[in-house]
């Protein structure tokens, strides 16, 4: 199973649009693309999961890895997700407190400049 992966620029953000089902079979493809984008210097990444029909914990693990890699490089990751099930998974795993979730790409790229925002503790 292959994911649909495309990138677009919303400077200073790079938006990675993901389409399809993320599981153990397709997660390596997403991981590879995340690594490629961040390692070429695009450290501020919006993961657009709007068109993800299914995502299990393997996919959640790739999102965690993306956040870690981007922050290590001095950037950050914002996640766009309207799927209630996926949002519930981020809540169950408490990852909704580790990175920011948005309903729309426009909302994700708006607001504070990457690196200048202050994340609430607690």
């Amino acid at each position: 199973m292959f994911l649909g992966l495309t990138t677009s620029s919303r400077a200073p953000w790079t938006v990675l649009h993901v389409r399809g089902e993320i599981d153990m079979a397709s997660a390596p493809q997403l991981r590879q693309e995340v690594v490629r984008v961040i390692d070429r210097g695009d450290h501020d990444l919006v993961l657009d999961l709007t068109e993800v029909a299914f995502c299990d914990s393997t996919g959640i693990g790739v999102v965690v890895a993306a956040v870690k890699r981007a922050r290590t490089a001095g950037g950050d990751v914002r996640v766009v997700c309207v799927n209630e099930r996926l949002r519930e998974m981020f809540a169950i795993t408490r990852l909704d407190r580790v990175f920011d979730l948005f309903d729309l790409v426009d909302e994700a790229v708006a607001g504070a400049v990457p690196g200048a925002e202050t994340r609430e503790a607690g």
Partner: protein
Amino acid sequence: MDADGGVELEIPAHAEFLSLVRAVVATAAALDPRLGDERIEDLRLAVSEATTNAIESHAQLGSEERIAIRCDLGEDRIEVEVQDQGEGFDPDSLSPMPPPTDPERLEYEHGLGLPLMRVLADETRIRTGADGTAVSLVVYTTPRGRS
């Protein structure tokens, strides 16, 4: 489908078969009109998690044995059992995740499957030993408190 109203399938321990397992379980669950779409999605995701763990356990052994999935449609429940022939594990030995505010939280890319299963299914039972692990996931078809 067998004579008892259940569905059985055996899959090679390869990730490419996960989507097939999800489709079969969702189709079987949809045969019970009492089960809403949301609960079917709960079961579909929980079974995907259990099957992923089974595939990983076979991969760790380099085992080419198949993984068995059985879906039983009962009077008041749907029960899916995922049986592997891996080395087994101790569910109580899994270390808890650090809190979200701890930078160490980003070191944990794995280990989310079992907590998710326990939230998604009404009952999650694990029998594990040196000859494999069987995970049973139960979703009630009638409203009832989750255990």
